[in-house]
């Protein structure tokens, strides 16, 4: 079945958990390629932006290879869809306050900040482990999954709710935060679908087979 799909491009800027994402995509019957080439990225129909690490460091690496231009060209033309995972989701927003702060790719609105001080006072940060995610109604990503589904998180920074027009999935860790977003051809999850058993595979499959709008 692989050959009937265009390959998935996993964006490589040197800070991803690429192997797991690649394995999950392959498991779902899709071909993938790993690329940090702006031209390849700009011409890809399906992009996955993974990432673990510091937001400003990631943006520096992305800009150094002009990957930001490649992603914007692909996504704003409407010919491509993109899914950001964990740090990759955060990079799609306007900014993060991590490590002195940095602008993001600004594909979607919203800003990323550390969990509120009252959360860190009572719960360990990073937030790590499986946690329940509340899916928004009409979601493409969560299609076929229960309204409340467990996914695996590892993060210290999060996007607060109420700052985006995108369809938002939420989770609660001392406070409510954005666990996932979708807006047209732009998708993101703060959790790791590639580490979330069958639920994560289902969500990834939903993204991969979604129609471009």
């Amino acid at each position, binding site marked *: 079945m692989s050959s009937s799909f265009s390959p998935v491009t996993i964006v490589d800027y040197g800070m991803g958990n690429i192997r*797991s994402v690649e394995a999950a995509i392959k498991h779902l019957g899709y071909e993938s390629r790993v690329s940090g080439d702006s031209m390849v990225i700009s011409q890809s129909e399906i992009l996955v932006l993974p990432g673990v690490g510091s937001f400003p460091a990631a943006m520096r690496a992305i800009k150094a290879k002009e990957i930001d231009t490649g992603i914007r060209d692909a996504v704003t033309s409407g010919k491509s869809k993109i899914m950001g995972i964990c740090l990759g989701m955060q990079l799609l927003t306007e900014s993060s306050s991590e490590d002195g702060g940095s602008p993001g790719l600004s594909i979607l609105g919203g800003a990323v900040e550390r969990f509120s001080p009252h959360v860190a006072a009572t719960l360990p940060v*990073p937030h790590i482990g499986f946690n329940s995610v509340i899916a928004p109604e009409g979601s493409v990503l969560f299609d076929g999954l229960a309204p409340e589904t467990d996914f695996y998180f590892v993060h210290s920074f999060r996007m607060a709710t109420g700052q985006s027009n995108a369809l938002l999935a939420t989770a609660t860790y001392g406070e409510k935060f954005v666990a996932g977003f979708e807006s047209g051809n732009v998708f993101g999850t703060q959790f790791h679908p590639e580490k979330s*058993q069958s639920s994560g595979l289902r969500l990834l499959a939903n993204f991969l087979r979604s129609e471009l709008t």
Partner: protein
Amino acid sequence: MKKRLIFTLLYEKGSFVLSRNFRTQKIGDVRWLGSHYNFEKVARFIDELILINISADSSFDEHFRETLSEVVSGVFVPVAAGGGVRTIDDATSLFKFGADKILVNRAIFQDPVLVSTLSRRFGQQAVVGSVDVRRTGSDFQVYTDKGTQVQPADRLGELVSQGHLGELYLNSIDRDGTGQGMDPGIAEIVDNSFQVPLILAGGAGKPEHLLNAITLPYVNAVATANLLNFVGDGLRKTRESIVNAGVELAQWD
């Protein structure tokens, strides 16, 4: 925080092994694990997977990493890997080949600077302190090198209190591979004060053993490396019994 059921795969010199009081018996490589145990299916009932290289021979490091990479490609849960992490490069390689976390063992006592460096570079949550504990009456001691070297347990507590270890994996030497039940007493080895999640390992032979341990308030996760007793539908039954006992585990179809 949800509790976790973890499976541990022990690797030694090219093969997965069963361990009983640290005497090991070869069982097979990653393909054998797939064909004889349908490991990928079994792994659908665990929250995390741990791979430990107990070869004590660095010439097997590369094969261990390849094995890690093959296992990871079919198992969609967080994976911790370790054994023989002596340098930053050793740890970096394990991450590159698919680990989400690394286990440190002897370095806790011999090279704590390596542990703190790893924690700063990859995050505290990515560094798991793994030690073996032997009980003598009501006393406990930490050992490394397959139960042959006594180590100062204080070092473990220091690294926890300094925020360099994200989790602790405690394995009972006395119960290891016996199937006689776990020994939660080994948690006394470290003054954890609930600061980091505790994973208890060693001695589980049937679902009740894992259930009894995971219900303890200070135990966040239980692990078994007992392939013979827990493959087939052993892990599925264990998971069911834990959930039925009212312990909160993550759920999926």
